[in-house]
């Protein structure tokens, strides 16, 4: 992981303010195309999303008129939306608690030297590298109503008696369990490698010094490892939250929001209303509810990076 450390220490080094005017001009010139692209295709569309949420635009035509906050009022009065909003928070919260908890265990286990470590790292990382839509399809087959291998296992061990059956994707509660399982499965590798990078970056002298001072394993865990890991833990959590909160792949492919719209999240509902339903204004209004959390995350991220800049 030495690349991590070198990249980061140099990134926090102050750039000297002794550039010539020609260099400054060249700097702006080289930066301009990327900035223009980001402005035109991220910043403007972002504002357009806000704008569309205040109109009655539909997919069929380019004509529209202003309806003020009507879309938001309609959306907020809809039980399907409220359920989706609640689901989004439940999925994010539960899966991230599990991911951070399990990720810490796995990262610590991977910190040790053992035979076959590289192979294990490769295998454990696969869920994150696979395209999410295809990986979710694999889970769709695992959760299949007739051929579910999980049900087979539960039958064999006697958990499911004769006549008992789990319809994983046909039941609101089991559907939510399935969705959370896939999120945890997918994001666990990501958090683990980030936490592992954090653990390896704690210099071994720190632990040796603590040993000399007679610190026990608990004192070391809570007074050394945890405080030193806090920034990296925050980063793993921030990305995990953003990836889960804004994801629609898992829900769309596993349950399509069903049964009876009980497992929708904001993103999949926005797609259903805005694209499949053709009500662009309403879809935009649903998607806008993703923004407040993203703003909070951005502020957190800035604080993390600012802190590393100071030291």
């Amino acid at each position, binding site marked *: 992981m030495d690349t991590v450390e070198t990249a*980061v220490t140099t990134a926090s080094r102050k*750039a000297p303010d002794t550039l010539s005017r020609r260099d400054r001009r060249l700097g702006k010139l080289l930066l301009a195309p990327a900035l223009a692209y980001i402005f035109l295709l991220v910043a403007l569309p972002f504002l357009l999303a806000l704008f569309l949420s205040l109109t009655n635009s539909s997919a069929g035509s380019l004509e529209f008129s202003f309806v003020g906050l009507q879309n938001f009022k309609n959306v907020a009065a809809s039980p399907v939306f409220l359920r989706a909003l609640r689901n989004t928070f439940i999925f994010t919260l539960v899966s991230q608690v599990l991911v951070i908890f399990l990720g810490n265990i796995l990262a610590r286990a991977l910190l040790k030297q053992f035979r076959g470590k590289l192979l294990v790292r490769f295998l454990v990382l696969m869920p994150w590298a696979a395209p999410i839509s295809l990986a979710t399809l694999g889970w769709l087959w695992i959760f299949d109503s007739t051929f579910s291998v999980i049900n087979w296992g539960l039958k064999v061990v006697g958990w499911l008696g004769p006549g008992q059956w789990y319809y994983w994707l046909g039941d609101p509660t089991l559907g939510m369990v399935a969705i959370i399982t896939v999120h945890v499965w997918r994001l666990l590798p990501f958090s683990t490698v980030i936490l592992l990078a954090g653990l390896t970056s704690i210099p071994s002298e720190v632990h040796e010094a603590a040993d000399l001072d007679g610190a026990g394993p608990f004192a070391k865990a809570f007074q050394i490892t945890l405080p030193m890991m806090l920034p990296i833990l925050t980063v793993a959590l921030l990305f995990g939250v953003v990836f889960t909160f804004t994801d629609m792949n898992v829900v769309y492919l596993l349950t399509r929001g069903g049964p009876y719209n009980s497992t929708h999240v904001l993103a999949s509902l926005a797609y259903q209303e805005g*694209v499949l339903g053709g009500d662009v204004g309403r879809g935009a209004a649903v998607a806008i509810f993703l923004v407040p959390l993203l703003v909070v995350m951005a502020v957190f991220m800035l604080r993390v990076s600012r802190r590393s800049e100071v030291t």
Partner: protein
Amino acid sequence: MRRGPVQRALATVGHRVVILGFTAFAIFPFYWMLITAFKQNSDLYVGASNTAHNPFIFNEPPTLVHLRILFGSTLFPTWLFNTLWVGALVVAITLLLAVPAAYSLARLTGRWGERLSIGIFLTYLVPSTLLFIPFSRLVALLGLQNQLWALVLIYPTFTVPFCTWLLMGFFKTLPKEVEESAMVDGCSRVGAITRVVLPLAVPGLLTVVIFALTLTIQEFVYSLTFISSVERMTVSVGVPVALVRGDVYYWGSLMAACLITSVPLAVLYNLFLDRFIAGFTIGAIK
């Protein structure tokens, strides 16, 4: 802390159990894809309530019939080609935009460049599930509905910010003396960049190429929204949307397609893992 041999043995066993448990959880769906892809239908479609039939093993000899269907009578090869075609163009656009921007942020912009680079990185957080609605307007306006060009236009919105950030970190690790000595020898700044800096930056550029390519292959939401013709789909959408005919799932071919696409990506990711992580940790590791 001193520990007896019994405790040490227990710790080793515990460690093994943890490693094995997590590995099994991670790879089970891939194992399931693998075994499904090569099973005969009569071995595959046995209801799970039949506890005498072990689904984890081949009860009948493996078959290549699902692979033959996938490559012979579905559009999977076309989708692979579409994906790589979009991927190549997106990588090219990403390099054209991100390389100059990253160099500029690393060397030529002074203190405000640092702020700006974090701002650019944060745009990576704006999700596709928010932007696909305004983009559907834009795509309609430009007449790009149902064309791969729509994806070529839009995909750099998530590759450029992250790749700029990654490359900026990489350029900063190169010593400044490299360009300075080239410029003393009579090179212009631009000449020094193309002749000296870029050759040294090849590992960084390669990382960005792989990253942009994998992000393109993984993308689902935009492709689902903008491409409606089956023959123009990318792999990530074609397989879950168009390989399922009506309500009939051809699980053997489906799982083969998932596996064939996922494994090469996993290999690529592993090779460049440390660099990606350096990008994500944005200075949280001291």
